[in-house]
């Protein structure tokens, strides 16, 4: 394997990890504020759908991105309403969102385009252009999102309060900050980030929408979040690792290694998952979630 091949694997890995990075950061914001977000998958899916529809109708990729952010934020607010205002079970609300998104996108897609839920292929300006090294603008946006998230959670008043909301909501409440507003803020941020993730999928990596095109990436992002122990930079490296493993699996296929010969396709494809389990089981130590995550806050009377 020469330097060029290595560079190509890194390019491909970075490209594949971009939606994961966005989704993982979305989960980070939401859970730091104390709202468990199983619905990352659903938000990504609806964002991918909205992006494809808007980009197809207007022929402009950036309008697609805006539509994705809007749709995903709307779904996020629904989750927020159920779990913040109504103090519902956050897991159930998240699962419901995933189901809603899976069914709704396929149904609407079929009504609009009559192609079994698929959108027509996008061309030209309706797709995110490749800037350099096989990356679109979304890669830059993803890395800046990591930077900003890390900075905001460590240094800004909003970030610190969000963290407090997830660890000890009563303290935030006693200090006079509005817990509701903080958590809604975090949920909206998560919606925006999931919007970028979905738009990357349907406008960047693929050229159009397919039913269930997220294929479990929202859950992989959740796993990455736990893996990274709810911290921004580790989340970035974890997602990058997952993307790289995927890229390596693609490139290694059919290549015969010295001494071993050609590895069966199945073994190569199991590699990322195997690696994840080994890393999770052996090298990670304890991952402690934000203490109040998943518990609705009830003001003492």
């Amino acid at each position: 394997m020469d330097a060029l091949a290595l560079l190509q694997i890194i390019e491909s890995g970075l490209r594949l990890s971009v939606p994961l990075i966005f989704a993982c950061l979305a989960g980070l914001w939401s859970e730091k504020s104390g709202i468990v977000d199983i619905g990352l998958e659903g938000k990504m899916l609806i964002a991918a759908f909205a992006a494809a529809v808007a980009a197809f109708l207007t022929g402009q990729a950036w309008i697609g991105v805006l539509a994705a952010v809007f749709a995903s934020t709307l779904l996020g607010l629904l989750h927020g309403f159920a779990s913040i205002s109504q103090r519902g079970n956050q897991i159930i609300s998240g699962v419901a969102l995933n189901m809603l998104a899976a069914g709704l996108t396929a149904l609407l897609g079929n009504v609009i385009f009559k192609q079994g839920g698929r959108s027509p292929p996008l061309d030209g300006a309706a797709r995110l252009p490749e800037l350099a090294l096989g990356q679109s603008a979304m890669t830059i946006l993803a890395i800046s999102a990591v930077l900003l998230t890390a900075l905001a959670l460590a240094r800004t008043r909003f970030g610190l309060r969000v963290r407090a909301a997830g660890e000890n909501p009563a303290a935030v409440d006693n200090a006079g900050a509005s817990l509701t507003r903080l958590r809604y803020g975090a949920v909206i941020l998560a919606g925006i980030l999931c919007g970028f993730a979905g738009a990357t999928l349907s406008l960047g990596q693929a050229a159009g929408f397919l039913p269930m095109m997220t294929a479990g990436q929202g859950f992989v992002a959740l796993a990455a979040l736990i893996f990274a122990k709810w911290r921004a930079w580790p989340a970035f490296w974890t997602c990058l690792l997952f993307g790289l493993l995927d890229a390596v699996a693609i490139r290694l296929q059919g290549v015969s290694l010295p001494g071993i010969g050609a590895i069966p396709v199945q073994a190569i494809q199991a590699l990322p998952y195997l690696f994840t389990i080994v890393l999770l089981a052996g090298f990670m130590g304890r991952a402690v979630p934000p203490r109040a995550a998943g518990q609705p806050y009830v003001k003492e009377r």
Partner: protein
Amino acid sequence: MRALVLRLAFSAVASLASVGLAPAQTIKPAIVYDLGGKFDKSFNEGVYQGAEQFKKVTGIDYRDFEIQNDAQREQALRRFARDGFSPIVAVGFSQATALEKVAKEFPNTKFTLIDMVVNAPNVQSVVFKEQEGSYLVGLLAAMASKTGKVGFVGGMDIPLIRRFACSYVQGVKAANPAADVFQNMTGTTGAAWNDPVKGAELAKSQIDRGADVVYHAAGGTGIGVLRATADAGKLGIGVDSNQNGMHPGKVLTSMLKRVDVATLTSFSDAKDGKWKPGVLVLGLNEKGVDWALDEHNKALITPAMKAAADKAAAAIVSGTVKVHDYMSDGKCPL
């Protein structure tokens, strides 16, 4: 109870009426698509087009079902059979196990299975000699390639797709014995038929290694393969349906597998009372497989390439060129 009696009486009258009034057999055809969906621009869509053509010619409507997971195959087939549909076209090799079971339960229903053989008195199995078509597009790929390197992206890793790959390699080597062929499979589950992102990544990896023509046999995944080759300014080769028009001038040709004809024939034979169970093997000779030449790829196919492909096709039909069938021995000698 009264409603039941009424309904029974009504259905008896209705069936009498249909026997009495319609001299030509009226049929209720149905289709169960494979994973990948009706609009995969490839395998399933070919069946859809055949059915639509039947509808246009005869005015007889049909019902269809797109499965979302493997468990639905049997349910869908049984549901259609119970509701009196016949013939029922089951699309794809994966339907074989489910079909075998359901065909036994409904001995009076006619089933047509595409891409796999089930031996039952009420099942018609249609299989194609994909190796012959793949050989021809391999030949064309090698002649169109400037780098001497070509690629193949398969869908699910199964013997049927290995058959495409193996004979493609044979065709490539026939035109250029020194050519390199990169082969990749998308996955090992049904999801591999519907993963254009992965398809695009696989094609990109082959292009990075120098391939300038990439052939796919991957259903909906192939949409990504053709897009990646078109984006990179290289050539793709379509499969099953004619995919030349998806990226005009960027798709060298398409290996046609006439599932549309198979569907149309099954429906119209059933309508005319000519439908027969058994195994149909469609190759170049029967026009069951072919390569596509139309206004979209006219400029890409030079007269020399067309002549070579025609010559090879004639040689395959006459038997002077033997294309290896991977499924006959599970090996690829190349």
